[in-house]
Each structure stands twice: as C-alpha cells, then as structure tokens.
C-alpha cells in the first residue's frame, strides 16, 4: 500500500454514513486547477497512487501535483470461504473518504490545456465521476 497513516489510535473502524456532500476541501486551494469528485466513495490508497503516477508520468518534470485527500480509513475484509462471526476481519486496505464535491488532485505551474490532459488521465483511474475545475471566484 502506498499511502497510509503512520500512527493510528485504533486498528479498525466502523463503516459510518457516507452519503453526504462535501462542505470542506471542495475548492481549489493550493494549485490552479483541480480534479473534483462528483460522487462519494472510499478511494483506496493504491488508486490515489495510481493517479499520482499517471499525472506525474504525463507531466514529466513540469508543474506541481497536490493530492488533497489521504487514505486514513481502515477497511477490513474477511477472507474468502470463511464462515461469518469470530470477530471483525483484518484490515485489507486504507481508503480516503470522498464525498460529492471533494477535490482529489490539484496542479500548479502548468498551462490549462496540459493540466486538463493530465487530470483527465487521473480521472480514468478514479472509481468516481470527476470533473476538471479551476480556482473559484473569491471576494
């Protein structure tokens, strides 16, 4: 697993409700362009890593990429052909909680066309519908 926390308070976690809209982390804050999720999902750390690799290989050494979400939620999974019960299963992977509106990736230091091409490649890797956005109006 590429991304996961260094220290946690508890090994396992309950699933919790995830059908909510993003009220924070839903705008381009660090870069100039961003990839915004249109749906909610638990995005595994390896998927985020795949997105990062896709963008950085495309951009070569140009621009700077920001990953705006972090997989800090442990997802447990029972092995195949196992009977139910005997406690909660082991942690299978770590996921980031993504809500509709969450900004997943941001890019700075490249023209808009290049940023869009890079982020479209990232969007192909994501398990959610995404859209390309710029900085929003500020007053």
């Amino acid at each position, binding site marked *: *697993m590429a991304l996961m926390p*260094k220290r946690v308070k508890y090994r396992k976690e309950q699933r919790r409700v995830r059908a909510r809209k993003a009220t924070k982390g839903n705008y381009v804050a*660090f870069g100039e362009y961003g990839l915004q999720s249109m749906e909610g999902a638990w995005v595994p750390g390896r998927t985020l890593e795949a997105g990062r690799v896709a963008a950085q290989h495309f951009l070569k*050494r140009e621009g*700077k990429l920001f990953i705006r979400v972090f997989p800090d939620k442990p997802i447990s999974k029972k092995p195949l052909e196992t009977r139910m019960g005997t406690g909660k299963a082991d942690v299978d992977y770590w996921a980031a909680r993504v809500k*509709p509106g969450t900004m997943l990736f941001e890019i700075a230091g490249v023209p808009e066309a290049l940023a869009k091409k890079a982020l479209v490649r990232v969007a192909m890797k994501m398990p959610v519908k995404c859209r390309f956005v710029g900085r929003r109006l500020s007053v």
Partner: protein
Amino acid sequence: MHEKSPLLTAEKRERIGTRYAARDRKRGRLPAIVYGHGREPLPITLDAHAALGLITRGEKVFRLDFPGHKEADEMQMVLLKDVQFDYMGSRIVHCDFARVDLNERVRTRVHINLVGEARGLKVAGNLLMHPVTEIEIECRVMDIPDHIDVDISDLDEGHVITAGDVKLPQPDMKLVSDPHGVVAQIVQGVELKAAEATTVAAEGAASPEVITAKKEEAKPGAAPAAGAKGAAPAAGAKPGGDAKGAAPKK
C-alpha cells in the same frame, strides 16, 4: 465611481429560511442580505442572471434600488462582502452586501495579476508558484481597484515576491494581509525519481503503529512479555486478549 457602479434592483424577502431561499432560486432570484451602518439587516433577493453576471465579472460596489419600498434604503450604495457557494463550489447561492459611503474606508480583497515572464522560468524544470492570489487592503470605496498588477519579469530562482512587496495603486491604501505571504516564487520542479523513492519507502512499512496498544503495555500489573510486540496490529492479535491469556501463567 457612483455613476459607474452598476444598478441592481432588489426585492425585500418577506419570508426567510432555507426552503424559501430555495424557492427564490428556482424562480430565478438570488437571495442576499444587506447590513451595516448600525441599521437592521435587510434580507433581499436580486435578479440572479443580472447579479451573477456582474459579480463574476469582478464588480464589488453596487447601487441597490428598492422599487415600491418606502424606506430610506432607496438607492443604497453597497459593497459585496461575501459570497456563498453550493457544495460543488461552482454556483453562487447567497451574497452578503454591506452598506457603505463612497468616502468610507473599507477592507476588501483584491485579485493579483502576475504580469511579464519571469527570468527564472527560462530554466527547464523551474515552476512559478503563487500561493497568495489575492490580498486584503484598506482603502476608500471609490478607490477599490479591480485588480493589482505585479511585475514578475525580474523574478529569478530563489527570489520571492511577498505581499509586502506589492506596490499598491494609491498612496493612502493600506495592506491588511500578512506582508510575508508569498505572492510569487520560482521553485525547482520535484524530481520524479525522488517522489517514487518515497513511495517505495512507504510501502516498506507493513502497518501503522497503534497508539492505544502501546498505552496498555505501559500499565503496571499488565502481562509484560506476551503483549510486548503488540505495537503493530498483527493479524488477529488483540491487545486485551494477550493480557488475559498471560494472567493464568502467574
């Protein structure tokens, strides 16, 4: 400025709240509020198409007209103070306006435009970073600029332009933002290999350290040897279970 300021026709909102605001939006109105100058806040609605067109164009000072409303608020000068977006951050759902006089000094945020091609960008792999895209200034309402141009043509690698370095258009304008905020900076691009190396290192760590498991070990009287390794969440290992299992051995 007074004549130049765009005119918006406002209607007073009789019923306020989420549902009524949503109904207003459905019929093409934009909910807003006007406050300031020691008077009661006044909830209003504006024509969404006209108002959003002006706001997205960067207008900040407006003349508000209240047709058929017998109040002193007629033809009020207002300053756009805040906008609220929906959860996707793309649609403006509400605006805040503050009553102002043209000669009044106000605090407002102004966008920064970077002008010119930085010298440091001619070196391959260098990046232009501008974390601060707007600065807060204090000035008279009639002097509020649309944007402030900052020349970056002399900016070289390692040099930084901070908010304090930005030359304000009028001498009586005062910078309110942190003067150390980085407006423009040339940085070296991160090597791809270096980034991949950190990933490989992270993969080496099997699982995260569990803070609570460590605390249980430190308890006096708890079984020492069996649970000692329990910092890492090994498969099926329960910190509490270890302690129970070790107790009968005593």
